[in-house]
């Protein structure tokens, strides 16, 4: 059954490419997509009932073939993928994209579902490579000079990183004799710790690159900031593509439990979050701001997963889903704004409320979600992430949230002020509005029914304590006040600080990226090998 979850979008994609590209066929595709979402819900219900749905591709018993497994986490992410692709394809309905765009989008969907369901080391490699190429072509869609260069750097750097992964697969096969993650984990549990250091370091280097963790994050803003790249692609890139890498991170940490270094990734995650926030605050480009902000959130998720507490772990999983929802919403809004104002410079976009009330309300919903306001989904997940942390980590996380609030205030500042009449471009299409609203409402629902959704998706029953909720509320209010004060007296106006311009100018070239991949590898090897 699971095989068809992966193959169906791909077959739909090729059919769409072959037979027509007019609007009717797109609507048919969207209807099929909606049906497909229904099947994903069915899969989730099945996994709730059975615990795990397993497909042996080709019915080869033993471990001779590829094995696909869907547990609750995988099914939840499959559902997330289908929902987000449904939303994004509704959003892009009005855009005049060629059939190539739709081909690649649906292939991308199939591949991402494949990554979530696959439990085979090599199969993940193949899927990751296809996904990389699909993303590279999608971001170079307009073939502008900037996008061509950045796309080249993205593709080549990804290829370098994935070679480390292939090296790691070689050692895993050498040591265990299998490629299935679950069985390999059973073998690995009986092996010496000494022999596992190298494969672990190799795999983690590639995963860290894909997940955009600190020294290796530079490709994410680079490709998301490409001018005229479709907003839908930028949205799904940080909403889902990066999430698939974090998903693999979770799986590999489980497989390599004897050597897995949680402290290292806790520290790295926190550093990533802090750096991401600092970078985000200093941006003036609306999409770059969102890109660095998602780096920060990735850092937060990685840190939460590495705390080693059940509450933080589940909270991080829920935060992955939440972050996907509001970040996709924000990116789609950014795309709408780019169309409306003809620019991505936040200093030139003002008075959204006066121009388009509905978009303004959608922005408010998404921002409330990302800052973790009460009644919104970010609140629930951040509450659980922080509830397992000790004092130091908690303080850092509060600071990170303060930074997120600052970023959001910068974003929200576009809502007010006097709209410049000369900048009003085309009106937004109804389909875009619908899709953005849908996401905004999901953020709200995810907050109100947060505990119920968590128990539904991950089969855990966590309760937020009232006392803790009030404490978080006080901290959040204080953070908002501090954020507003900082914004009013430090960031307000068009003050273009020199340090911000410096930070904006930071840019790794290809050689630098390769160097940082190597450096990350050496550091993780040294940490795992010598420090423990």
């Amino acid at each position, binding site marked *: 059954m699971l095989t068809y979850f992966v193959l169906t979008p791909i077959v739909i994609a090729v059919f769409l490419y072959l037979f027509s590209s007019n609007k009717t066929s797109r609507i048919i595709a969207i209807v099929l997509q909606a049906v497909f979402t229904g099947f994903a819900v069915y899969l989730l219900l099945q996994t709730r009932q059975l615990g795990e749905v397993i497909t042996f591709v080709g019915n080869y018993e033993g471990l001779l073939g590829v094995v696909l497994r869907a547990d609750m986490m995988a099914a939840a992410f499959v559902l997330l993928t289908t929902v987000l692709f449904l939303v994004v394809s509704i959003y892009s309905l009005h855009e005049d994209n060629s059939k190539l765009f739709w081909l690649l989008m649906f292939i991308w969907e199939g591949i991402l579902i494949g990554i979530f369901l696959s439990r085979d080391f*090599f199969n993940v*490699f*193949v899927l990751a*490579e296809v996904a*990389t*190429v699909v993303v*590279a*072509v999608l971001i*170079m869609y307009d*073939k502008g*000079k*900037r996008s*061509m*260069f950045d*796309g*080249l750097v993205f*593709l*080549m750097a990804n*290829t*370098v990183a994935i*070679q480390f992964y*292939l*090296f790691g*697969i*070689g*050692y895993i*096969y*050498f040591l265990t004799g299998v*490629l299935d993650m679950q069985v390999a984990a059973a073998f690995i549990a009986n092996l010496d710790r000494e022999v596992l250091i190298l494969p672990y370091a190799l795999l983690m280097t590639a995963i860290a690159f894909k997940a955009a963790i600190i020294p290796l994050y530079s490709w994410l803003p680079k490709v998301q900031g490409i*001018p005229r790249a479709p907003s839908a692609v930028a949205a799904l890139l940080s909403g889902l593509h990066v999430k698939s890498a974090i998903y693999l991170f979770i799986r590999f940490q489980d497989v390599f439990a004897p050597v897995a270094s949680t402290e290292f990734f806790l520290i790295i995650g926190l550093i990533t979050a802090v750096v991401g926030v600092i970078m985000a605050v200093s941006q*003036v*480009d609306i999409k770059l701001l969102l890109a660095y902000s998602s780096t920060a959130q990735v850092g937060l998720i990685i840190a939460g997963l590495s705390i080693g507490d059940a509450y933080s772990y589940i909270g991080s999983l829920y935060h992955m889903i939440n972050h996907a929802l509001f970040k996709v919403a924000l990116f789609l809004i950014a795309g709408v704004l780019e169309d409306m104002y003809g620019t*991505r*410079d936040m200093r030139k976009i003002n008075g959204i409320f006066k121009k388009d009330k509905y978009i303004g309300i959608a922005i408010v919903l998404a921002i409330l979600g990302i800052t973790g306001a009460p009644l919104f989904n970010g609140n629930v997940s951040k509450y659980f992430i922080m509830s397992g942390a000790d004092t130091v980590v908690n303080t850092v996380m509060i600071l990170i949230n303060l930074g997120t609030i600052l970023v959001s205030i910068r974003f929200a500042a576009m809502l007010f002020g006097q709209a410049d009449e000369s900048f009003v471009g085309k009106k937004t299409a109804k389909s875009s509005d619908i899709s953005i609203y849908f996401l905004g409402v999901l953020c709200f629902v995810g907050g109100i029914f947060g505990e119920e959704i968590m128990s539904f998706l991950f089969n855990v029953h966590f309760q937020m304590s009232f006392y803790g909720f009030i404490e978080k509320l006080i901290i959040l209010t204080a953070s908002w006040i501090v954020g507003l004060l900082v914004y009013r007296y430090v960031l307000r106006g068009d003050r273009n600080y020199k340090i911000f311009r410096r930070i904006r100018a930071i840019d790794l*070239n*290809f*050689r630098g990226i*390769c*160097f940082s991949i*190597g450096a990350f590898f050496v550091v993780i090897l040294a940490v795992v090998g010598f420090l423990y």
Partner: protein
Amino acid sequence: MRMMEIVPIVVFFMGMFGLMTSKNIIKSIACLVLLEMAVIVFILGLAFRTGILPPVGQSLENVYSVADPLPQALMITAIIIGLAVTAIDFTMIINLVRRYKSTDWDEVKAMSTENFDEC
């Protein structure tokens, strides 16, 4: 000695050295090919013994030293994937070459990012 294991590692890091230092885009691509080939030789060489036989023929279970067929099937896939990626890389490079008449990383970067400094 596990020659078949250590030599590919050395070649791999030679490729990394090339990637870290090369100024020419085409040279970077060549180094990437070096990397890919090194990994493939490495994986096939993990179970290397002298006089190893290919896994082709009838009643293989009676032959003393047969090569493991699984890595071979996987590496064919890896080769094809590497080729597909390299082809796209070259498309982009040719596109850049036609625009700028240059294959220098820094020159191409300077030319492709001009007018985009402060946006």
